[in-house]
């Protein structure tokens, strides 16, 4: 589903503050895989994810998503198959817009944003129904601005928004980093459910080793822009949580 071939990313090339964020990464992610990426700060995880999303372009190498070469395709075009949840809840939703308007935009992610009014009663009911599956009681607040909700609620809604329109790949960049443990748990469980129900191919970046242990069927450890460890399905399930802590030891 996602093929990353010998990708490099150098920031500020040729200057004293040059950073080799990603160094010759080869990574092939199969359809419906749930890949977890762990690694210290500055190990290149987020840069790699941003290159898959298209908000950063590689300095060299190629990226294929669903058989299509997307190496130089901007993020707003890749969004036809890729949905994202950001670390900052503000980045994934528009605060001043109502929940309903946020969902409207999400429901036409892969389509033209035309000159007709798409928010009607049918749509409202559809959104209410979706939101009620979260069990957070937000279905009666859909006219409220997104900004009135907590970070956890916003992240849960962002997840839900990603499956409002056809979606193949879900990118999760530390979606729970800004949340309290309880909200984080709700968000991660929602993510897992959606990934399973919609059969998504997904990448999760996390610093939470418990999540890294509990979720996903493949795990990689990144360091200095390279893949240091790569454990496939069987190896990951054989992994103990303490082994993970040792990786960072």
């Amino acid at each position: 589903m996602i093929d990353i071939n010998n990708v490099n990313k150098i920031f500020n090339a040729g200057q004293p503050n040059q950073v080799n964020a990603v160094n010759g990464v080869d990574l092939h992610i199969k359809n419906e895989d749930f890949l977890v990426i762990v690694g210290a700060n500055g190990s290149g995880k987020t840069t790699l994810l941003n290159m898959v999303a298209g908000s950063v372009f590689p300095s060299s190498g190629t990226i294929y998503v669903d058989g299509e070469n997307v190496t130089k395709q901007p993020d707003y075009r890749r969004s036809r198959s890729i949905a994202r949840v950001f670390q900052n809840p503000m980045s994934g939703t528009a605060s001043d817009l109502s929940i309903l308007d946020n969902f409207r935009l999400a429901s036409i992610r892969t389509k033209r944003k035309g000159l007709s009014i798409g928010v009607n009663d049918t749509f409202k009911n559809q959104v209410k129904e979706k939101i009620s599956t979260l069990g957070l009681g937000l279905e009666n607040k859909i006219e409220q601005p997104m900004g009135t909700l907590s970070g956890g609620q916003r992240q849960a809604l962002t997840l839900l928004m990603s499956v409002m329109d056809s979606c193949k790949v879900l990118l999760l960049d530390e979606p729970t980093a800004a949340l309290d443990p309880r909200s984080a748990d709700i968000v991660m469980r929602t993510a897992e459910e959606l990934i399973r129900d919609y059969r998504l191919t997904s990448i999760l970046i996390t610093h939470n080793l418990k999540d890294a242990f509990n979720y996903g069927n493949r795990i990689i450890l990144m360091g200095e822009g390279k893949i240091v460890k790569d454990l496939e399905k069987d190896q990951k399930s054989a992994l103990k949580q303490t082994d993970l802590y040792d990786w960072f030891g």
Partner: protein
Amino acid sequence: MDFYLTALLQGLCFSALALGIYISMKIFNIPDITTDGSYTLGAVITAILIKHSQPTYVILISVVLAGGLAGALTGIIHTKLKINALLAGILVMTALYSVNISLMGTSNLPLINVPSLFTLINISANLNYNTFWILSVFVIVITLIIGYLLKTDFGISMRATGNSESMIRSLGVNTDRMKITGLALANALTAVSGYLVSQQQGFTDISMGIGIVIIGLGSVIIAETLIKWLKITSIWLSLVLVLGGAIIFQFVLAITLDIGVNPNLLKIVTAVFVLLIVSLPRISFKGNQND
């Protein structure tokens, strides 16, 4: 009383400008001061085409296209060349001065005793009343169009662009193109104000646009203060308040002149008034400065 009627008429003329600033400043979060140039551009094109006896709808379309072009130019400079929006606006505004004076060939064109938008239909024998009715209908139609636009899928994307760029890009919107379109729309509206004012006051002057952006800003800031106080989230009410802001602004100026303040001091009164409106909410909520 005629004095205040004129203020009302001017307020209505400037409501298109206020809507334009509302779009660039509040919806897109871009400080756009192409305004001074595109406003005059609208007035200049109106004057020239009236002199060439063009029908008023042809003039209106030309004005909208010209204003849109000016705004799009600012948008392209801002997004494609990655130049600060404020500077991009100043560049286009400065260039437009030459465009305007070259087009007009003179610094002032009187439009007396020529057919205009306000002589199109005769509702009342009094020219001012006639102008009032035509202007009101005109402004209502513009507001309805903009209100509808902001409710559409395209409009929601516009609002999201100024609010959370990362989000709307991940939802498939080319934000550069959206900003260019938004600035084009804002300046088309501004040019329409030039179209209205030149016909209402009966002349176009090359310097009529100098500092005009403050009228739009003032109107929007009045509206925004009210929107915050009354906790309004409806798009329609917000637009109505922007129109109200434009009219209140002209009334304040009219009252200032009426109580005998030297017209030379009008600009300082304007500046102080806008400052007051901006700072008022902060002064009255001194208790929670962190808000």
